[in-house]
Structures are given as C-alpha cells and as structure tokens.
C-alpha cells in the first residue's frame, strides 16, 4: 500500500485501520519556529519491523515521542493499537516499550537496580522478573556488569541496557529512537539480530535511524523529511521504483567533474562517497553524461541503486 502524502489525507478518512499496531495520522507539531512535524502519516502493521529513516532534524524523534504519548500534538492523531497513547493510560502503556535516543536510565543506579526499578513500575511479579531479566542479561551479555553503575557503561552497553529495560514487560509494540547511533559495528549487528528475533516472535517494532543503509533491514521503511513522509514501502520495491540510473564516476579532476556535472540537467544527484563520486541521472541519459565527462578523462561505471540515491532523488523532486 502506497502512503498518501499528508496533504491528501483528509480528516474525514481518519480512522484506525484494523490490524495496524501504530498509526500516525497527519501529525502536526511546532516547537517555536521549528515545524517538527508537518502532517506526518504512516501505518505500521502488527508484527512489522518499520524503519523511520531521515536526516537529523527531520522529525523522527518528535514522531516517536508523539506515538509514545509524551508530547501533545497541534493536530492529527497518534494511535497505538487503536488507542490514544496520551489518554490510554495503563492499557496503552502496558503494551508499549520505548527506548529513547538520549540517556533515559538512572546514572547512579546499577544495571540490576535499573532493571528492577522499571520492572516494578510494570508490576512484574518477582519470579517473572528474574526469569526475564536473566534472559535479557544473557542476550545483551550484560550479566557480568550487573552491579556496575549505568553511568559507567560504554555507549553500546548503555543502549543494550536501555533496550533491556524497555523489553522487560514484553511490550506488543516497541519504539526505538536511533538505537544504533553511537554503537560500535559489532554491537550494532547484535542489536539488529535481536530486533529480528523479537519481530519473529510477533513484536511490532518501529525504529528511527539516520543511516540509509539500515533501511533495507526493515520490512517497511518510511523516509521522513521536514516533518513529512516522502515515501514509504518495502525496501526492495522502493529501490526498484527508482527512476534514475546510478553510476560511480571514475578518474578525472574532482573539481572539474563537479563543475561539469552541475551544468547537466540530466544529473539528479551527486554525492561523494569517500574517494569516489556517486551520481544519479535520468533514465536513459547515462550515455549523454558519460560523453560529457569523457574530455575530463572521467568515465562512468554502473552501480546498483541504494537508499541514499533514492532519498536524494526524492528530496530533489520535493524541492522542484
């Protein structure tokens, strides 16, 4: 199902979709001069792993906070399992887990004390708490650090503890705000493996990330830009739907190449990736662009499109 842009979502059609775990319906929120959310709409089906992808300041955190019921909205509706998270009280909260982007644990309490405290807020019986926490400590490999204060944990361990705290009550829906940000590659891989396991067991997961390459690990992704959804869908289908051809520019003087490319209307996006330059050009115009670069001793090598190409192309369309 293609996501309708916010403008097309009229108030009359707002209603909870059965089977959806999370629903953002034309969310609008302004903080002073910043329009954090500008009609953001998307739906996450039950048991899905949904990735909210966007640059810093795109509105990802605000969207997640709105879904968690932590901020009020200027207009629009956020629904968790069909209920308003800000009003739903205990019923919604029991079914929701949140791992915020910034620190969220008590720095002066130990790993074990943090876990126990949050377990008690969910009124987890003691036996169940022991069972779940030992399992979570095993998965996150935090067991040996049970008595370490949270503020003495490394960035990755801290995130894992935060995740463990959010998972203690086995929420039906898990919201993760940039869980992989500031986490080393190994922990990052472990985290993804854990998320896939949770989803496999039936949990609905919504996560935000600024990393385009993480988009393909999700069942569905939504690209968010300036508080609105640019596009959403299955990662493969989205990539297949990219109109542009993508190339890597090889050789040539970078400045000259840049200048030449900037003057070609066919070139839709150019992004330096390390020592190479990646470009997206209009379908069928690869030959023209290649010919234009020839005098500069540069050539084009076709590459598979990725999410960054897709995102940049869509942002450009939006701007046009």
């Amino acid at each position: 199902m293609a996501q309708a842009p916010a403008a097309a979502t009229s108030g009359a059609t707002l209603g909870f979709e059965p089977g959806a775990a999370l629903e953002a319906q034309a969310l609008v929120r302004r903080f002073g001069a910043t329009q954090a959310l500008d009609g953001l709409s998307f739906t996450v089906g039950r048991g899905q792993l949904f990735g909210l992808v966007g640059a810093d300041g795109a509105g990802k955190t605000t969207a997640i906070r709105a879904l968690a019921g932590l901020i009020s909205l200027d207009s629009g509706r956020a629904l968790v399992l069909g209920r308003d998270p800000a009003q739903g009280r205990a019923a919604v909260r029991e079914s929701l887990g949140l791992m915020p982007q910034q620190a969220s644990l008590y720095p002066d309490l130990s790993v074990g004390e943090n876990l126990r405290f949050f377990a008690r807020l969910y009124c987890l019986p003691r036996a169940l708490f022991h069972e779940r926490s030992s399992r979570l400590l095993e998965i996150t490999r935090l067991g040996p650090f049970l008595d370490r204060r949270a503020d003495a944990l490394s960035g990755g361990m801290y995130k894992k503890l935060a995740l463990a705290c959010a998972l203690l009550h086995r929420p039906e829906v898990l919201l993760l705000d940039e869980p992989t940000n500031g986490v080393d590659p190994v922990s990052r891989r472990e985290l993804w493996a854990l998320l896939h396991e949770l989803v496999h067991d039936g949990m609905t997961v919504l996560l935000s990330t600024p990393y385009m390459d993480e988009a393909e690990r999700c069942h569905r992704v939504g690209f968010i830009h300036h508080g609105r959804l640019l596009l959403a869908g299955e990662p493969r289908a989205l990539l297949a739907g990219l109109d542009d051809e993508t190339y890597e520019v090889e050789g040539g003087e970078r400045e000259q190449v840049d200048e030449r490319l900037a003057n070609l209307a066919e070139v839709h996006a150019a992004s330096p990736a390390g020592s190479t330059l990646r470009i997206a050009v209009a379908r069928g115009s690869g030959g023209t662009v290649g010919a234009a670069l020839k005098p500069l001793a540069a050539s084009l090598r076709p590459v598979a499109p990725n999410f960054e190409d897709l995102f940049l192309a869509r942002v450009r369309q939006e701007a046009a």
Partner: protein
Amino acid sequence: MIARPRWTVQLRAVVRKEVRQTVRDRRIMFMLIIAPLLQTVVFGFAVDFQFDHVPTLVVGHDASAQSRQHIRRLLADGTLRDAGHTTELSEVQHKLQTGDAAAALILPAGLARDLAAQRPAEVQVILDGGDPNRAVVVAGAASRYFGETAEAMVKARLAARGIAPPPLIRATPRIWFNPSLKTPPFMIPGVMTILLVITTTLVTAMGLSREREMGTLEQVLVTPIRPVLLLIGKMTPFLVIGCFDVLLVLTAGVWIFGVPLHGSLLLVATGTVLYVLSTLGIGLLISTVSRTQQQAFLAGFLFAMPAILLSGVMTPIRAMPLWLQVVTFFNPVRYYIEVLRAVLLKGAGLVDVWWRLLALLGFGLTLLTVASLRFSKRVA
C-alpha cells in the same frame, strides 16, 4: 504470593529508588543531615541580638571624681565596655570609623560644678547608627542610667530639705517565656523553618528537574505509573527527612541552647507536616518551570530569600510597611514560624494556633494540587 495493589508496588519502587539515589549523593546527604546541625550551631551562637560590652569611648572633659564615678557605674552593668579615654573629638570620629568604638560618651567640662551649682547639665552620647539595634540598646542604657541618677539627686535634695519624695510611677518589666531574653530560643524555631525550605523545596525542585534533565522522567512516564504516584513517591523521602531534621534541630536547640519546650510536641509535628505540604508544593511548582537543576536551584533561592525575610523569622512583621505586612499573609513560612514560637516558647495549644494550621493546610493543598496539575499537563 499475595498480590499487592499495583500502586503500592509502584510507589514503593519510586520511594526505594529515591532513597537509594539520595544516600549515594554525598552532596545531598550533606545538605540534608550535616547542614542542619551546622546551621543550628551557627545560628545559635552567631546570631545574637543581645548587645553586651558595646565598646564605648569616654571623652572626659570633666576630671572630677564624680564624673569618674558616673562612668564606672554606667559601665558596671556590662552593656557598655570601656574602649579607652580621650579628650580629643577627632579621636571619637576616628574610633567610630574604624569600629574600635561603637559609642562615645562625652562628659562636658564642669559637669560636677554645674550640678553642684544647681545648673542643668547635659551628657552627650554619640552613637554609631550603622547598626540600628545596637545604637538603640546603647542609647537606652545611657538614658536609663542618667535618668535614675537624676531621680536619685532629686530625692536627695528633697530629703535635705526635709520633704518626702513624691510618689513615682515605675514600670516594672517582668519577662515571660524567655526571661533572660536569650536569642537562641527565638532563633532555633527560625532555623527549623529555614531548614525545611531547603530540604523540601530545594531538594524536590532539583530532584524533579534532574529527572527531566537526565531523560529519566520520560522513561518513567511511558510506564503505567500515574504521574501523581511518581510525585508522591519522590516527595515522601524528603517529607521524612524534613521531619527528622526538625527533630534534630529541636533536640540540639534544647540541649545546647536551652530552648524551652512548653507546648505539645504533637502540635509541633502537626504544624511541621502541614508546613511541609506547602514547601513541597512550591518545590514541585518550581520544577515545572525549570528545565535544568541549575534553574531549579536558582528559582528555589529566589523563592526562599523573600519568603524567609517576609516571615518574621528574622525581623518582626509589624516593623514592615503595611503593604508588605499584607503580603506576608500569603506566605506559608509566616504561619509556621508563628506556630512554632507560640507552641515551643509560650506553650500555646490548638485553640491558639488552629487557624494558622488551617491556613497551612490550605496553602499546602492548593500548592500541591496546582503543581501536580501543572506537572501532569507538562509531561503530557
């Protein structure tokens, strides 16, 4: 396992967590336990409104034995202390400026001779008005002495002529409640009042702001616990610590400074709990307008300073301009200090202070309600 009501599990969790964090924070522990004792001692010893041994310079232009006798008698009761003799007025100015003397007594030349010749005489007392209280005390001591001296002279002269002295009306002060007019019995209740503002208002305001600053508040608020329960759990330990501090200061006051315990301790305890409702409410209110601990701390002081100054803890409310006196009616600190002084020093009972307790209850409930509503609204 017996299932306890959910809210008690949650409340206990918050209280336990709060206690654990407080115990681990040395600065807070210092503020809560050591600072009260230090304050008691410092206020008890250092804040003394009694003026003894005020250094007084004697400017003797009159060298008669009679003048010397006046000076000796005047200094004898200990209010004034001999800070040297001089005949130079310039030295008076110098010593008053440097603070070596706080008063100067000028006995004019020919004082004894004038009196013997039945001419009126004048003794000048120069006072350092920098400290108005002290100046008043010195002036009082000097005029009392010379008044009595004049009276004795009148009597002596009438007796010499064989006339009985006329009847005099004499004011006989008899001081109740604090007969030796010691400062500590007056100040210790003040210390208790000030302390509670610090332990409850400041610590609550900072504690909640810290949760906001650390991001822990949101993590707690996505759990099923109701915000009000979180607030109660966070404030409970400080209510207990506040009451403990009161007990601590009171004990120290009784033992070290001999503060009398005339009234019912139960009444003191009731007043304390009602007062703490207000101070906690203000702390909570402050936390809803502060983003950081630092802001909360500053806001706390911004409240505490005028609240204490306008409470009558330090200076009498009657000495304030009328419009300020009206303001003090909206200050819960005022009611508590009045209850404390009345009950502790004068043995006042419930019949005497009930309306003040009622005022404290009213303030407490209003402040807590408004603050909780604001808090719940801000996080939603």
